[in-house]
């Protein structure tokens, strides 16, 4: 008797442990996210606090693109109580890398580095440029990536694309400045920075001074056109701006935390249901000796609260550990985030973690606790638990149908009615998905048995008697099996959905790229007003390796006061005309992108008035509309000769090149590279490269999201382990009987493994179907003209892995079942 009591207790502890683990993982993830966010924010605060000490007042222009003139600076310098005032310069100045080309996709940003008390630059190695106009500093990440060392000579292009050489004297940490960490930074003296960039004015003026009321004095002096902040205000604004992205990221992570907690809630719900079912007799005995229903209810809730508190506390520790680990990793890979502030569990994190863990646990235990109160005292006298019978009630069917219809309806609206790419469309699909999921949740117990027969068809044949028994067992307690598998379904649904969305995005984008990039190479520079000297195209045109070279030129202009990008082309262009015709395109004619024509409210045959730089306002007749999503023409296209009269001999903005038939790509690439070589700003890209970069980004995204969803899967596996260990416990007698009849230990283990396999596969299959359908719906709602791609291999892998994971979850319960002594089990009960 003692033996069975001990065995019962052990089984019980095991189950509570699994539950605790589920909550622990969920809370740990959420707490870890908070700690990560806090640490990074603290790091940002730390970095800007130094600035706050240096700057007493800062003056900033209002509105993006606006600047502060020299006059404003002089006026501030003339104020009483101002000991020093410095204007900060910032502008594009492309750094040239070791390959002789400008670095990165965006031009490096040049900043001025001042001397004296207002020097805010964080020089991490070497020195600042001081007053040396031939010295420069680079941000440490760029220097490292380009292999540039202190003492090296670096080359930077000025606004006129002329090369200038500087001695690299120091390395700069870009700190919280997201723009600088994104583009890379090169620091000069103020004079050099003005010379290198297309200087129109300062981005900011920093003021030092001790006089009280300095801020007001400065504000009065500069007038309403500018924002005036104290050093502390500036610092906290900078920190907040830097933290915005971190917060978005945190929110994203928390979403995964919510999914994990949802799965954990299902696992907890199941566990307490199981515990209640298992202790029916215990509970009935309590009721026999006078415990009220309330007391029974309370005792279950108390138990869940204790589990919730303990697990949440452990979860907080786990979260702290996870965050520390993540920060270490982020620090090691030089992520552009401050990771050195020292992770800490803030009171808010502790309170949130505990509250989430406790509330989820107790809420999930509510229903089981209620069913515990329904145990009749006479149940104490029954010898064995009743077989769970389950009938698909009319009400259940009705509700499920209701949710299913509502879910499909809302999804259909998102897919077919609303415009793709809008937030509402995606929201509709998400709402439809949630409703459908509820329908599946309700229908779960009805679906389990037929699905287990379907899924178990092969294992039932491969594994003989144990297999067939297992398939029968898996559908035996439909409610429990449904809850167990639904927990897994959530994770697999999301994984499948994400992989369908990524694969479809890839397919759609590749198709679009092929349309928009109907060329082998594109040549342009990294700035918005790209400049490719005409000599490049002239040289390429002579190359026999190339079939065609198209030159596109562009200039800013206005039509009826609206800014447009006017342009022309030279070479064989495929214009994708949607209305009118471009045959005999010549002076006085214009082709508009359909979207621009709509914006301007004109049609083919109408006339527009284009304001040009050289020829004043000219009337043009609209002869054609071209598809904006396809082709490469500028939004307002005129004939080449006309363009020259309107805007002068503008250099090419970009070239589009096709290789001649039969020429190897490497050879063609060499020719194109050679033509671009004299101009460091002129870069060659190929469709394949663009696609490769895009692919990499998508793969990375898919990997990260799948990894994060792995947590939900892990928690649901705890649920499978839990359910199985209960089944083992409940079927001790049955297992003993089977063993007596000649089932070997191994066969008994196989039986439980197959049961787990079937449960895992059911959950995964339902998830794969849901994920596939809603992945399709999501991509249709997100992208216009989306093409569906079902990554069948990937989805099959998810399903197979879920099955394998289910089998792994069965290892411990199966071992316990196989170890049990036959006679002990026969005697017990």
């Amino acid at each position, binding site marked *: 008797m003692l033996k069975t009591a001990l065995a019962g207790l052990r089984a019980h502890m095991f189950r509570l442990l699994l539950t605790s683990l589920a909550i622990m993982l969920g809370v740990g993830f959420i707490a870890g996210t908070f700690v990560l966010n806090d640490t990074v924010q603290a790091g940002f605060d730390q970095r800007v606090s130094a600035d706050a000490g240096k700057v007493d007042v800062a003056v900033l222009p209002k509105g993006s693109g606006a600047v502060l003139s020299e006059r404003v600076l002089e006026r501030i310098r003339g104020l009483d109580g101002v000991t020093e005032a410095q204007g900060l310069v910032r502008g594009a100045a492309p750094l040239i890398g070791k390959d002789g080309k400008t670095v990165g996709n965006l031009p490096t940003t040049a900043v001025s580095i001042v001397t004296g008390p207002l020097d805010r630059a964080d020089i991490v190695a070497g020195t600042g440029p001081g007053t040396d106009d031939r010295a420069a500093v680079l941000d440490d990440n760029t220097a490292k990536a380009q292999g540039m060392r202190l003492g090296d000579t670096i080359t930077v292009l000025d606004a006129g694309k002329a090369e200038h050489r500087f001695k690299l004297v120091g390395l700069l940490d870009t700190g919280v400045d997201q723009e600088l960490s994104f583009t890379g930074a090169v620091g000069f003296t103020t004079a050099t920075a003005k010379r290198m960039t297309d200087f129109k004015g300062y981005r900011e003026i920093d003021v030092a001074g001790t006089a009280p009321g300095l801020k007001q004095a400065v504000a009065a002096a500069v007038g309403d056109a500018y924002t005036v902040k104290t050093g502390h205000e500036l610092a906290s604004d900078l920190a907040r701006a830097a933290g915005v992205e971190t917060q978005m990221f945190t929110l994203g992570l928390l979403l995964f935390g919510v999914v994990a907690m949802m799965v954990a809630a299902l696992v907890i719900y199941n566990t307490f249901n199981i515990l209640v079912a298992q202790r029916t007799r215990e509970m009935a005995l309590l009721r026999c000796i006078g415990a009220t229903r309330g007391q029974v209810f309370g005792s279950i809730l108390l138990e869940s609260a204790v589990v919730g508190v303990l697990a949440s506390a452990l979860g907080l520790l786990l979260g702290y550990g996870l965050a520390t680990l993540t920060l270490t990793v982020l620090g090691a890979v030089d992520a552009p985030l401050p990771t050195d502030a020292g992770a800490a569990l803030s009171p808010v994190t502790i309170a949130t973690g505990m509250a989430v863990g406790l509330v989820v646990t107790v809420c999930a235990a509510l229903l089981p606790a209620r069913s515990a109160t329904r145990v009749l005292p006479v149940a104490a006298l029954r010898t064995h638990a009743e077989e769970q019978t389950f009938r698909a009630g009319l009400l259940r069917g009705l509700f499920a149908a209701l949710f299913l219809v509502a879910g499909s309806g809302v999804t259909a609206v998102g897919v077919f009615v609303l415009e793709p790419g809008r937030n509402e469309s995606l929201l509709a699909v998400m709402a439809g998905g949630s409703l459908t999921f509820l329908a599946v949740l309700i229908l779960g117990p009805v679906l389990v048995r037929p699905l287990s027969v379907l899924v178990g068809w092969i294992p039932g044949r491969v594994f003989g008697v144990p297999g067939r028994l297992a398939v029968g067992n898996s559908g035996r307690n439909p409610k429990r099996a449904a809850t167990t598998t639904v927990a897994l379904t959530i994770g697999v649904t999301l994984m499948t959905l994400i992989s369908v969305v990524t694969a479809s995005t890839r397919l759609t984008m590749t198709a679009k790229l092929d349309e928009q990039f109907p060329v082998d190479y594109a040549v342009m520079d990294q700035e918005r007003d790209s400049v490719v000297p005409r000599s490049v195209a002239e040289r390429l045109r002579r190359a026999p390796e190339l079939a065609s070279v198209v030159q596109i030129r562009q200039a800013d202009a206005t039509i009826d006061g609206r800014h447009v990008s006017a342009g022309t082309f030279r070479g064989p262009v495929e214009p994708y005309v949607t209305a009118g015709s471009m045959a005999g395109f010549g002076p006085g004619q214009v082709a508009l992108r359909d979207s621009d024509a709509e914006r301007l409210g004109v049609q083919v045959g109408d006339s527009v008035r284009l304001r040009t730089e050289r020829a004043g306002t000219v009337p043009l007749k609209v002869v054609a509309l071209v598809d904006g999503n396809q082709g490469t023409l500028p939004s307002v296209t005129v004939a080449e000769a006309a363009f020259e009269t309107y805007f002068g001999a503008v250099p090419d903005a970009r070239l589009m090149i096709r290789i001649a038939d039969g020429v190897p790509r490497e050879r063609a690439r060499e020719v194109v590279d050679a033509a671009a070589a004299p101009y460091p700003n002129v870069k060659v890209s190929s469709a394949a490269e663009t696609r490769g970069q895009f692919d990499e980004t998508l793969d990375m995204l898919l990997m990260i999201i799948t990894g994060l969803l792995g947590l939900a899967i892990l928690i649901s596996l705890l649920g499978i382990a839990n359910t199985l260990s209960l089944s083992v416990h409940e079927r001790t007698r049955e297992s003993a009987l089977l*063993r007596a*009849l000649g*089932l070997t230990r191994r*066969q008994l283990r196989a039986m439980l493994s197959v049961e787990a396999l079937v449960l895992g596969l059911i959950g995964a299959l339902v998830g794969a179907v849901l994920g596939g359908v809603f992945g399709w719906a999501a991509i249709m709602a997100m992208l216009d003209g989306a093409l569906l791609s079902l990554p069948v291999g990937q989805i099959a892998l998810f399903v197979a892995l879920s099955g394998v994971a289910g089998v792994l979850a069965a290892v411990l319960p199966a071992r316990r079942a196989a170890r049990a002594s036959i006679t002990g089990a026969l005697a017990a009960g």
Partner: protein
Amino acid sequence: MVTLTERRTAPAVVATDLTKVYGQGDARVHALRAVNVAFATGAFTAIMGPSGSGKSTLMHCLAGLDTATSGTVHLGDVELTGLSDRQLTLLRRERIGFVFQAFNLLPTLTAEQNIRLPLEIAARQADQALFDRVISTVGLTDRLSHRPTELSGGQQQRVAVARALISKPQVIFADEPTGNLDSRSGAEVLSFLRVSVRELGQTIVMVTHDPVAASYADRVVFLRDGELVTELATPTPQSVLDTLVKLEA
């Protein structure tokens, strides 16, 4: 009846100096003390004794469900002592049938599936003639597709007996097969056991503490405190009761 036991010379099961000790130290329980007993082939033997006298333990040791502390058990020409768990399992699968007091059937299987289960586990073909005969003898022909929950207690036990018979085991061990049944259903099951001994030549060893049940057997052996104390051939309910009363005194 007497002639039956005498005709077969080689016993089906023989226990020699069989001893079983549970626990250690103060908690030591001698469930069996050097029991020597043989069970004749083709005979129906009952094991009787007061509660806790070691009946179930003896049966478990004889059937290879449990291992004895010392002594030997022979099932036909096989010695059970020293066999591994796997060997014992295969032996049970091939040569032994069981009928327990309760929980005899798998609730997920129909009566027919339950009956065929041992054959399936052993991956053996059922002898269809035997199957039909057993089914009609136990009167389950119209109950084959029912699940255990849809059967009465007596029917469930008859399914269990049919299952034990179908694999033609060397011995069937039954532990209180009628313990949970009313007397009418119990009588049905017992007569069926006796019929299977008579007509199929089945060897059956049955544990019981009911003198009426024991009277269906050819021979009754009596246990007390783990020792074999006496035995009775051609028992009647009255003679069994008398022996029990003598034992308790």
